[in-house]
Structures are given as C-alpha cells and as structure tokens.
C-alpha cells in the first residue's frame, strides 16, 4: 500500500514535475525569486512588514495548487493579482476590526506619509492601478493583463486617481 501511495504521490505531483521538465520554472524557485518583490509591493498597501509577509505567503499558498495550470507568460501577472487581492482582503478585515476597537492616534506618524496615505485612501481599483503603474513601472498593457481589465479602463482609472491625488496633495 505504501508503494501504491508513493505511486499516487508521484502522480499527484506529476503536473509540477512535467512543468519543471518542460523548462518552466519550478514553483519553489518562482517563489524564492518573487518573494521579496511581492513583499515590498504588499508593504506599500498594508504598511506593516509582518502583515505584508503574511499576505504574500498566503498568496503563494493559494497559487501553489494552481501553478501547473497557469501559462508561463501569465504567472507573474497572476501572482501580482493574487497579492493585490490579498492586500484588499487584509485591508477590509482591518477596517472592520478597527470599528470594534478604540482608535489610538499616534501623533508621531501624523503627516509623515501623507502621499502614501492619499494613495491608500483611493478606491481599491484606482489604488491598484497607481501601485502597478508608479511602483512596479508596469505598462498600461501589463496592468490590464494583471487586473484583467481593458487598457482603456486602466487609462481612465489612472486619470481619475491622479486627479484625486492632485487635489489632495495640492
């Protein structure tokens, strides 16, 4: 039975192995290559490095079982989208939890990151576009692929976000 189990284990991992054999980067290597960049990306949105790490780890864990089904030219975009979605979930949880606990004002931080605060206060769709455009320097086409929206939508979201930011930061 153990042997049979070993055969099945092999079968279960056959997708990933086949992917590795066909020259596609194994998931572990993909993880080690992308981890730091994605942690920094998440850090911009969730502020705390520990929280950012948690979001990114969860994103990789969600991606792991699907990795062999994602085409090679889409894995980076898929990962970025997964991380952004994870950040969004995290922020939503944080907002909800803050409603149920007393707010503590940390005066030392007031105004220190007002540009960042303005970005974080943008609606999530606009915030994601700003982040991908100005932090990751992605083209509009790459942003459209990551968020699975049309390039025209990217332009309009970016335009509206910049208008808002100009007003806030002006």
């Amino acid at each position, binding site marked *: *039975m*153990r*042997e*049979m*189990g*070993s*055969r*099945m*284990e092999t*079968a*279960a991992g056959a997708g990933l192995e086949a992917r590795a054999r066909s020259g596609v980067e194994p998931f*572990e290597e993909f*993880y*080690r290559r992308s*981890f*730091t960049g994605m*942690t*920094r*990306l998440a*850090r*911009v949105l969730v*502020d705390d*490095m520990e929280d950012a*790490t948690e979001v990114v*780890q*969860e994103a*990789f*864990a*969600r991606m*792991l*079982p699907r990795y062999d089904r994602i085409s090679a030219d889409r894995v980076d975009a898929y990962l970025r989208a997964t991380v952004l979605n994870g950040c969004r979930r995290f922020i939503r949880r944080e907002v909800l939890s803050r409603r149920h606990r007393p707010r503590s004002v940390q005066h030392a931080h007031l105004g220190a*990151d007002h*540009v*960042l605060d303005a*970005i974080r206060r943008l609606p999530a769709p606009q915030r994601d576009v*700003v*982040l991908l455009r*100005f*932090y990751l*320097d992605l083209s509009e086409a790459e942003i459209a692929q990551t968020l699975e929206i049309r390039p025209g939508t990217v332009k309009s979201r970016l335009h509206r976000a*910049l208008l808002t*930011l*100009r*007003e806030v*930061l*002006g």
Partner: protein
Amino acid sequence: MNVRHEDLETRLASAMRDAARGGDEPAPNWAGVQRLAHRNRVRRVSTLAACSVLVAVLATAFTLRLGNGPARVPEAAAPPADATVTRPVLEACQALSATEFDVAAMPNSEVFADAKRGSATTVARAGRLPDVAIAGDGLVALRPANASVQGREALLQSLAAGRNWLRYERADGSVGEIVARGLADDELVTLATRLETGTGPIPRNLVSLGPVGPIHVAQSACAQRSTDPFMVTAMSGDVAGRLAYALDVLTVSSVRDEGRSTIVTNGASSGPPAVRQASEAEWRDLVAAGGTGTITSPTTAPR
C-alpha cells in the same frame, strides 16, 4: 491643481518605494507556504464535508417529514434507505479529486469479519499470497512466505522498539510494511505469525466471510505526504453476494471519524456505492453467511 504632472508621479513613486523598503525584510519561508497550502486544502475538504452533512441532514429531515406540514413526498418516491445515512468522512473522500486515488485490484481475496470487535471491522486478505490484509481500524501488510525477513521476529523487534510498523523487503525486491493501529500488540503478532505461513489458523475472533472476487483497494495520494495529516484507504468488493465498501481514515482533524468505517450496500456492484454504515443486523447476517470456505487458511470458521 498646482502640482505638475511629472512632479506628482515622481512623488508617488518615491513615497511608495520608501514605504516598500523600510524595515527589516524577511527571508522567504518555503516551508511556511507549503503549510499554508496544506491548511487551505484541509479547510476546503472540511467545508465540502460540512456542506455534504448539511445536505444529508436536510434530506433526512425532509424524508422523515419533520415539522408540522403535510408530507409532500409519497412513499413510493422516498429515497432508498442507503441514502439517508451518510458519513462525513466518506463525503469528504468522495469530494476528493479522482486523481487523489489510485486503485489496485487484489485477486483471490478473502474477507474476514472481526467478531470480537463487532460490526466495525473488516479484514481483507489477499488470498494467493498472504501479503496484504486491511483492517478497518488499521492497515496490516503481511509479508509473503518467501520474503527475505522473518515477519514475526522482525515485527516483535519493531514493537519492542516502540514502533507500530514494520518495513520489510519482499522477495521481488519491493518493500512492504506492517502498520498496526487499533490492534493490540499480541493480536498483531498472532495475526502476523499465522498469516505469514499461509497455512496456520487465524485468530478466533476473525470470522471468514468467504472468498470474494477482486477487491479494489484505493488509497489517497495524500497519504504519503508528510504535511498531510490524514490518509484515506478504501476497498470495495463483492462479499457474500453484496458489495462491501470499507473505508479507513486516519486522523482528519476537522472531520470527525474514528476510522473503522465499514459500509455495506445492497446495491449494484457498478458505479459509486450508495454507502452507509451497516446495521448490526446486517452485519450479523453477513457474518452468518460467511465461514463457508477459505482460500488460504484451513481454519477460518469461528472456533
């Protein structure tokens, strides 16, 4: 509107890069990702199992016409009894992808009921070579007579070392194991001693249900993954004119099951069985129908 376009973009990029790089950056934790992925999978299976249980409960309640309203289902349309009692772990098992399982057929098998343990245990043994026996509350693999290790002595050594398993090499070079769970040491040793010869009597508490056709044994692929806390072993075969389906599940934290799940159906022998726990009466019938013969052991009737 007094911020110029380029200035604003520069400020945005700069603020985000500063925020991204502040503080100590953690190192990648690959093991952590694997743990999380496993946890997600277990949660998914648990959720599916919980949903299945809920559906089964609702179906049962509807069938039993709980509540004060008039019965809406005529007697003739009531679902068969097999569908009314389901086991969460079996639902979880069925919810698993087909790729999670591998199925092997054991020809010339013989099935035993453990009278001492009541209705919850079945032991199946490959008849031609006493190589594998599956107990509902444990997996017992026994070496063939021409294996290179003396099974009983090796098993005794293994038990003395505090282990409940024994790995051994078969004559063809493949590796087998004896794994005991829920069996007392002396029972296991007795079983190993008697079955390894292929001629000796088996313990008196094991009642032969007679020879059966090929038994299909399935084991979940996750059984060998060290990160997965559970394994599912299932077997099915034609036993005494019925389709028997035994399922053994090792710890699934959120799906309560003690193992030792023996399910017998009266249905057709094709397709997924409509499964349920055998009733005591059915099990007694099954035991009574057995004991008619054996392939490998001359004394399998109750003594």
